[in-house]
């Protein structure tokens, strides 16, 4: 899992409160401050969609597994049981971990069975999932 917003902010706090060696002042610290700014930007982006993104991804994985066909009923049952609980980020991530493991199982089974339709459906799901999870930072223009 990529670091959580809490992890990222903890890193920023540690950096900002650490004693700076004389040789670290200057270019190095300037670059570090830029990184603090970038990480805060990432935290803002992540928090804006934190719970909703996870709820949507978990629901989409459950639906994908439920619609995979009768041969995957056991996986569908397990997926349905992996609930989102109290919607705390940690609970949603724990459910997401279970669901992703089931999705990996499903994909391996589809590949072994030569189920091209399900394979392509899962690959399309991966593209959508990665797109939704991406954190888009504006590129830096020259000058």
């Amino acid at each position: 899992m990529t670091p959580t917003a809490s992890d990222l902010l903890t890193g920023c706090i540690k950096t900002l409160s650490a004693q700076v060696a004389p040789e670290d002042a200057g270019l190095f610290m300037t670059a570090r401050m830029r990184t603090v700014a970038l990480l805060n930007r990432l935290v803002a982006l992540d928090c804006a969609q934190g719970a909703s993104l996870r709820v949507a991804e978990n629901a989409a994985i459950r639906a994908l597994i439920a619609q995979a066909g009768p041969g995957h009923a056991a996986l569908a049952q397990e997926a349905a049981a992996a609930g989102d609980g109290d919607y705390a980020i940690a609970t949603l991530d724990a459910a997401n971990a279970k669901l992703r493991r089931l999705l990996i199982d499903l994909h391996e089974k589809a590949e072994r069975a030569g189920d091209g339709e399900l394979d392509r459906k899962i690959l399309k799901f991966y593209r959508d999932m990665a797109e939704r999870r991406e954190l888009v930072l504006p590129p830096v223009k020259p000058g």
Partner: protein
Amino acid sequence: MTVLAATEPLGRRLEAYLSNLWDGTVKVRELARIPGGASRETYRFDAEIGGVSRGLILRRDPTGSLIDTDRQVEFLAYKSFHGIVPVPEPLVLERQGGVLERPFFIMSRVDGGKVASVMMTEPYGARAGAIGKELFSILGRIARSDPHALPISGCFTAPALADCWREALDAWQAVIERDERHPQPIVRAAMRRLRRNPPRPAQKLSVVHGDYRSGNFLHDGQGRILAVLDWEMAHLGDPLEDLAWCFDPLWNHFDDGRVAGTIGEDEAIAIWERDSGLVVDRSALAWWKLFSAVKGCAIWTTSAKEFVEGGHDLVLGFAGTYTARRHDRIMADRLAQLVEEGWS
């Protein structure tokens, strides 16, 4: 040898070390840490001995690192290619940590150069074409070199040509399995597919830089590459590994029409083929391109783990978050495309 206590300033300890090594009084001036990734701490300084000053770079092992790399490999990579392609001259390798707490090496400093940030658009401006021509010519010359004639070859057991892909994939898959903190279905699918659709054997064994890309070389702003840097992941393998890594969209500066923000892919391949003496097998290159995303995923997976469980180095936090998610998307797109093109 006089070893000063770790509580002494770094510059004084460096002075004591170099004075002993070079058998004269050395003054260290303008010591400053510079940003340079997370795999080594990098410092610039001037060393003055006998009234003569020389610009140097100190690369010291960090307390935690992005990837576990051997400073001897990096040092010998510089030694191997100094005089063949533009690299700094390696001067001192200290494998014992006592003097500066952790192992380090010292090399000559190349002044007057810039390093492009991968977050920047059009970093080479009107000189992009010239930079691209040189970038892929240098990579071709690295690929052409006989690894057995180079000092770095002693660091490795040479893989069989048919095993280059498998050894590379095994190594990075092991990293993912060791450091993964959350299940990653995309990279799992990519690794299965890579194993089911292996590339043809490497045409020749080469030294692979391991991280050859925009952002890892110094250029003069006028279209000339001054130094290829960051050889810490160097190894022996299929030279297509470096080419594919350099082509990865992560390093294209948000320009899908140009590799490494420089020139088109076809032109880059033609230059590389001319200077390596090799021919690019496009299907093998496609394999190495997907592999590049897997390798990236492994590096960012370790970054995330070390950021959270280690020292909270912000560079690792950024790599483990932004870069990881961007590479996931690149990997998912590439995987789906290869299956559409007929991969089993």
